[in-house]
């Protein structure tokens, strides 16, 4: 494969964006960066979709002045990407509004802390103490309770 083949370059861009996006989502802890990661991942996926039927030398799928070009680019992926971009921005706005609220409530955007606080809140609402991460045996389970009462002899 020729390194300067335009297909290779474009696909590398798409996969590269996706890879960086996934890496960002997985590695980062800061919420905003995770949202950035999702945006990058989406961008990469969009590019990939658009490339799926790309041909060198095709013209844009628009008839200008009534002349039909010999080969036009595939309009379907373009329409799909159009849709995907708009969906992406809707979700982005939603994520940012939620982030604002979460920061207001918990005072942090670090995912680890958010998880911890969330866990605390759920436990508090349920009226149980926060389950500790240490592996303490559960003494409340009926079985062990039964086992502990007078052990058979």
């Amino acid at each position: 494969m020729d390194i300067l083949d335009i297909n290779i370059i474009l696909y590398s861009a798409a996969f590269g964006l996706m890879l960086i996006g996934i890496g960002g989502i997985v590695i980062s802890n800061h919420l905003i960066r995770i949202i950035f990661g999702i945006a990058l991942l989406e961008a990469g996926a969009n590019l990939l979709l658009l490339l799926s039927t790309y041909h060198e030398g095709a013209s844009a799928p628009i008839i200008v002045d009534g002349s039909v070009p010999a080969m036009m680019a595939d309009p379907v992926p373009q329409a799909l990407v159009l849709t995907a971009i708009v969906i992406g921005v809707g979700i982005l706005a939603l994520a940012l509004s939620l982030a604002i609220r979460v920061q207001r409530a918990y005072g942090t955007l670090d995912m680890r802390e958010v998880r911890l606080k969330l866990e605390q809140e759920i436990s508090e609402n349920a009226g149980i103490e926060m389950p500790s991460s240490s592996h303490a045996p559960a003494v409340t389970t009926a079985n062990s309770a039964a086992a502990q009462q007078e052990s058979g002899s």
Partner: protein
Amino acid sequence: MNLLVLMIALPLLTAFLLSSINRISTLAARWIGPLVLLATAVIGLSVWPQLGAAPLALQWGGFQAPLGITLYADQFALLFALAMTIGTLLLWPRSAENQLRSSSLALLLAGTGSGLALSGDLFNIYVFYELMTVVSYGLIAGRGTSGSFASTLRYLVISGFGAALALAGIALVYQATGTLNLAQLAQLAPEKLNNLQGFAAFVLMLIGFGVKAELFPVNMWVPEVYATASSRVSALLAGVVSKLALLIIMRLLILVFHQPEALTVLLVLGILGVASGELAAWRARDLNRMLAFSSIGQLGVMFIALSIPGNAGIFAALAVMVHHLFLKPSMFLLAERWGGSIEKLAGAARTSPIAAALFVLLALSLIGVPPLPGFWAKLLVIMPMLALDQPLYYLAVFVMLAAASLEANYLFRVVMKLYDKQPAATSHKVHATADLATALFLGGGLIAAVFMLVPLADRLDSIAAQATDVSTYIQTVAPQQLQSGRVQ
């Protein structure tokens, strides 16, 4: 022209117009939503019998398939479209301050769910799926607590990640085949998608659509969301919405992806889901999260069922899905007032004997005690797996049976608490009549199923047979043959 389109269009239209209607009459805005859903449910039911004979394919906008978008209705799809509509109707969100918004969201959910079930175009499915996801964010966050916002955000991150991967999967499919129409994909798949690229596309889409179906590695949102969302929303998400996501995966599996590796992936992820969910539920100390974890386990069973090759797998998965469709919403409705620590439930059977009895019934069916429907569903899953005589399937059977014993243990720990003779210090809340009535209705469905086992099984079998009939699918949609840029 067919009225089936209205099942999707009418709820959307009403949702758009709801705030205008509210200007005119608050009363109308309150009642129009349920009425519209009732009407769409009636439409769906009226179409039901005719689909038994032959499935139906519609073209949005009247453009010939594969150019336009196809709507494919067989009983399999309509079953879940109806489940979505009726489920939303039964579990209509009731919140005092956000009535208008939650009504719109419920309408959107019903319309989207129906569309998702009926859609016959890959990208269209993706868009419906995204819309459904966004609507669920709204429903979850609608609780308005900081916990619900945080859990929505966590859900959104996982979902957004999954959706982008699904989009990449669609890109790979389109790259290989040049079409998005499922019928045409079914035609082209054996030739063009039976390779590594096809498999990669499947895995990407599986991760994407698996988020809602509580597939193992992407289900980390489940416990938090079900613990923070209102019980009705949890009931909808766990009971109905997850099934729709599963339905998509089933469709893809039946029509497009025939790799044996795909089945193995499903099987392994299903086993991991069952094991992790049921084990985690064992130590759960509040009812909501216990139900959430057990729901992960149940969905895992469905994935295991899906991994069985051939008609038997689809039939088994369908049976488990329908069973769960009745059971989980009912359980979450009971958890509405019993949420929180299980310790505090001590003696709750005194104040609400009917709810406690219903809980026992549901628990028994969930763990699969004969002659309740849960047992037969489980039987349908296990029997074909043993017949396959492969080590991984034996492992799956073992995990399922072991998980059932765990399930029996933790669910009956709750039952024991309910019937405890020393009531807890705090007084117990009594269920709202509407909640209890709905839960009873669903539970009654389970009991009725016991007496109609044979016709029910026959019906599900025929639905599964219709769903797995690829050639009918292709013939009904009848996509044009594409050739080098020209239509024949």
